[in-house]
């Protein structure tokens, strides 16, 4: 998909695969035949550059056509470079400018509480994205206002565009930061579906606090030459690399 587009973000899409799969297949209440069902759970990909992983989930569930996935980033495609509600109405948010999704998620969670609906909101954040100040404005709000129908998942793959997060602007101690903002905080292997399932269940049981899940992941997970390689943050694999990658993933 990204090879066909000629540009895109393979590394950060692969690191979030299990998070997205656990949510869309095991955790979230949603109905592709009724995408605007008021009681649905909300998913926001705040790290919007990982759009390909979200597009695959939406297409697999039938929200959007699978046959057009290879039109990613082409003129007129549903599958815009970053998620765009104008093209896919089933999306909860248009994202791509980093740092804004957690605040949007708070708004959706507050609306659910005001209407006494069971909806929960799940926001996937990038680790580099967590350098944005607005994330911490939202973290302060979520903890203070006890927005316990909200879960933030940090895809902690430790690489951002210019290199390793720790070389650019370390987030550590990251779990302590979320705890200090009064979030119930869980650290786990972000590629373990059972660990993710257990954490989302724990989040749902946790009252009076929102939950932050620090998901330790590997950028480019599953493709040996992409794993932990900053080059594949925002560069499309060549035709040859794509074939090798698909062989490894399959």
């Amino acid at each position, binding site marked *: 998909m990204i090879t066909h587009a000629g540009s895109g973000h393979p590394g950060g899409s692969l690191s979030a695969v299990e998070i997205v799969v656990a949510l869309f297949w095991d955790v979230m209440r949603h109905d592709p035949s009724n995408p605007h069902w008021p009681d649905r759970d909300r998913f926001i990909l705040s790290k919007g550059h990982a759009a390909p992983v979200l597009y695959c989930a939406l297409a697999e569930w039938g929200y959007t056509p699978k046959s057009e996935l290879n039109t990613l980033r082409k003129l007129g495609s549903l599958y815009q470079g970053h998620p765009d509600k104008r093209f896919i109405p089933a999306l909860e948010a*248009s994202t791509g400018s980093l740092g804004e999704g957690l605040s*949007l998620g708070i708004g959706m969670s507050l*609306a659910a509480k005001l209407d006494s609906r069971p909806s929960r909101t799940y926001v996937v954040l990038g680790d580099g994205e967590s350098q944005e100040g607005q994330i911490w404005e939202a973290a302060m*709000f979520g903890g203070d206002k006890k927005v316990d129908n909200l879960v933030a998942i940090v895809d902690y793959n430790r690489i951002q565009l210019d290199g390793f997060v720790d070389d650019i602007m370390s987030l550590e101690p990251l779990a302590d930061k979320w705890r200090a903002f009064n979030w119930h905080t869980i650290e786990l292997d972000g590629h373990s579906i059972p660990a993710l399932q257990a954490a989302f269940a724990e989040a749902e049981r946790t009252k009076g606090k929102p939950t932050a899940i620090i998901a330790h992941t590997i950028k480019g997970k599953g493709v040996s030459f992409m794993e932990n390689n900053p080059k594949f943050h925002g560069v499309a694999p060549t035709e040859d690399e794509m074939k090798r990658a698909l062989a490894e993933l399959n």
Partner: protein
Amino acid sequence: MQTKTKLELKMGVATREAFGQALVELGRANKDVVALDADLSKSTYTHFFAKEFPERFVECGIAEADMIAIGAGLASSGKLPFAASFSCFAINKGFEQLRVCVAFPNVNLKVVGTHSGISIGEDGPSQMSIEDIGLACSLPNFTVLSPADEIAARALVHAAAAHVGPVFLRTGRPKAPIVHTAGTCFTIGGSFQFNGAQYNGGRDVTIIAHGLLVAEALRAQETLDNEGISARVIDMYSIKPLDRDAIVRAARESGAIVVAEEHLVATGLGVRVAQVVTETNPCPMEFVGIQDTYAESGTPAELMQKYGLTAMDIAAAARRVKARK
């Protein structure tokens, strides 16, 4: 030198206070109305709403970017949120969020800016919003409204609520003279031309203004009449979308236009009117507003005088533009 005028306008409440009153009315009529504020509710008058509907009031703390995006999330889930702050903070600190979370996905969030322009007085330029109209109008999908008095403010709050899509409503700090009569109809995309019959139909010049400068324009109109210059005054409260027909008519019938506003001339209503005039019926224009500068502390009256925003300045511009016809 004060402009000699017999025009007596009754003082009303500030447009920000009228907003606060109208928001409570809306809240009573519609349970989906939610108010957000960033630690300025006593100044923006959302505290009226907070008192009556505490469960629907979202105090965001001093975090305007977060507030705008939370408002966008509420709107995306079917709420009718009004997010309020001083115009300079709502627009400047929340601009990126207004762009990506509100304008781009065309989300139904209403943003209300108070303390607009330099008439806030003593607090000085860090709190004075003089760029907000240019910034808000630059956002596709946004409607931008600027009421002149409490009557217009109340009506435009209701018009904003009825409109589906993002709106920026610009209100002011000081009490505003009442220029409109109760029951006047205000619509998005509309304008209000004052009865110019007693001023010979306003055949010599048109003064287009918004906000507090509408009252100044009416005072200038009287002054000009005493000199034998027939001026008409239009309250262009809907800055985006503009009432193009009213502008074209003014250009055709009076052949000279002054635009007056408490905003930077470089990016305010004036340039938007000039675009319509040059596209349709070119005529001489003059612009009364804040030049390429920041103001300072002082009383509102002192500042309006020093920065050239009085009836006297409008009348002088009208004489200049008439001479260029």
